[in-house]
């Protein structure tokens, strides 16, 4: 087998072994699912309290009815989980290369089996493996916990089915797909910061700081924000399509879907990923390790 490929595989196996034994990697996978489970419980408890109050007052309205539909909560769980996962992945990506350089562990990889570029690619792939595991766990947890606390069903008002379950599922699928597309670019951003930074602490603080700053300032960029991968990610100041899906599956008819936004969501993150990756691969060649 080609030496470059062998080096990449060795570096990847090494990354996965380290991930298996380190807390940071486990947190990336488990924390979003744990966090949304807790969120569901808190929401359910507060809803139960509100329902008891309304029952005592003899009230009951459409909002209360749709609040019992699990689809809305399922999407909220995905949205919160992906927001947290995005930040965790950026932090983990920023930590990945820089901490190995700080500890000197990177040197053994470079001297014995892999080129610098192979190591960066292995880190990127290993972070995607973590992301994939975290997403699968997040979807499963969100579905199971929301399904246990509420009931999945179509949106019905006065006996009329506003939105069928098939339509809801199709919207959730699209929303999830669009929310996941920018994730590789976010990981690549973390890796780039990791390669550039002088220490692991600096890398993590810078990557998280820049991600949060982008989140805050994207609203001020107007049209230009559409050319930023971060605009399409579920985040604290969420503009992603998943946020619209959350309202759609609750039966709100005032959601305006911007087709251009959806198109840009599908295409903008790829060149961003490519640019960030190429920059990382170029810079890593020149860094002292």
């Amino acid at each position, binding site marked *: 087998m080609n030496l470059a490929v062998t080096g990449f595989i*060795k570096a990847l196996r090494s990354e996965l072994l380290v991930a298996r*034994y380190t807390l940071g990697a486990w947190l990336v996978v488990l924390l979003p699912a744990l966090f949304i489970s807790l969120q569901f419980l808190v929401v359910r408890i507060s809803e139960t309290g509100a329902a008891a109050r309304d029952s005592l007052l003899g009230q009951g309205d459409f909002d209360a009815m749709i609040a019992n539909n699990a689809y809305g909560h399922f999407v909220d769980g995905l949205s919160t989980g992906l927001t947290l996962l995005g930040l965790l992945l950026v932090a983990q990506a920023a930590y990945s290369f820089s901490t*190995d350089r700080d*500890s*000197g562990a990177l*040197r*053994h990889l470079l*001297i014995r089996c892999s*080129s610098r570029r192979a190591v960066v690619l292995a880190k990127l792939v290993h972070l995607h493996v973590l992301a994939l595991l975290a997403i699968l766990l997040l979807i499963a947890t969100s579905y199971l916990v929301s399904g246990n606390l509420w009931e999945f069903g179509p949106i019905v008002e006065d006996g009329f089915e506003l939105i069928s379950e098939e339509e809801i599922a199709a919207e959730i699928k699209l929303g999830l797909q669009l929310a996941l597309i920018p994730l590789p670019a976010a990981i690549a951003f973390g890796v780039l910061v990791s390669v550039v930074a002088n220490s692991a602490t600096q890398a993590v603080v810078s990557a998280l700081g820049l991600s949060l700053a982008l989140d805050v300032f994207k609203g001020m960029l107007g049209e230009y924000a559409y050319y930023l991968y971060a605009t399409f990610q579920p985040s604290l100041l969420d503009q992603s399509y998943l946020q619209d899906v959350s309202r759609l599956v609750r039966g709100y008819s005032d959601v305006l879907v911007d087709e251009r936004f959806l198109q840009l969501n599908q295409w903008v993150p790829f060149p961003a990923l490519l640019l960030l990756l190429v920059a990382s691969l170029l810079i890593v060649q020149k860094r002292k390790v």
Partner: protein
Amino acid sequence: MSSESPALSVTGLYKKYDQFEVLKGLDLTLRPGAIHGLVGLNGSGKTTTLECILGLQDFDRGEISVLGHSPGNLHSAQGKIVAIFDSPSLNPNLTVRQSLRQALLLCEGTTRKPEELEAQLGITRFSNFKIRNLSLGNKRRASIAHALLADPEIILLDEPFNGLDAGGVDEVLALIKSLNQQRGTSFLLSSHQLPYLEDICSHVAILHDGQIAANDEKSRLLGSVQSTIRIQTDDNARAAEIIGQQAGLSLQANSNSDMLLVSSNQVGPADINRQLVEQGLAVSEIVAERASLDSLFRRITQGTNP
């Protein structure tokens, strides 16, 4: 790679940090099977030299080849080249055993086993300890085990004795000797611990002012150094006069009224003692200092040629 080719060759290596030129045309050759010591003052560029050789940092000019591989391409030697650094350089979140398992992934085809190396280096009882919880000495032992798992042909060590107790130093010295004798492993050791290097090295290079000031087989280098005889009498001025007239003896510049330092090629301390006594001087001290790596190093770095 033929047995005639050098295991490591550095030619005309230049490296500058901003305006400070650390390496000014350094040349170094390591023969296969040699244990080559690299010594120098603090900041003389030993670690920089090793890092350039290992491709961990760029250099301005020069050529480097390690087992026929360029510094940026050492990974293609697939574990035949390894390094042990001044700091432990292992993932602090892994246990010793996990760290050694990771090393196994980096060097397929090795015949060595983690348990065997843990036992050899006396860290078996720490195998489930996280690296970050180990003492400096045990971290160093773990990093040596990590390197040796690769079954390398050449090992570069930067300050390998730092943080080790006397027993640890003996273990490392014994390990280097046995690897060199049984497997023919070549070593380049950079260290301040001159007595240890003198004990173990077959060759020594002294790095001074950005260049290799002396580089040869240890026995030849030490053979070229004149021995020094330290003398104290009741009249050092008269003693200096007598010694000055004697062929084969020369008074060193750093002699003073309390102590005479005499360089000698053929005349031994017994002969000098006899002459001084015959001249009526009372000799209170006469000590022959044998030629050592330490004395050679001091002479070179203090500006006196051997």
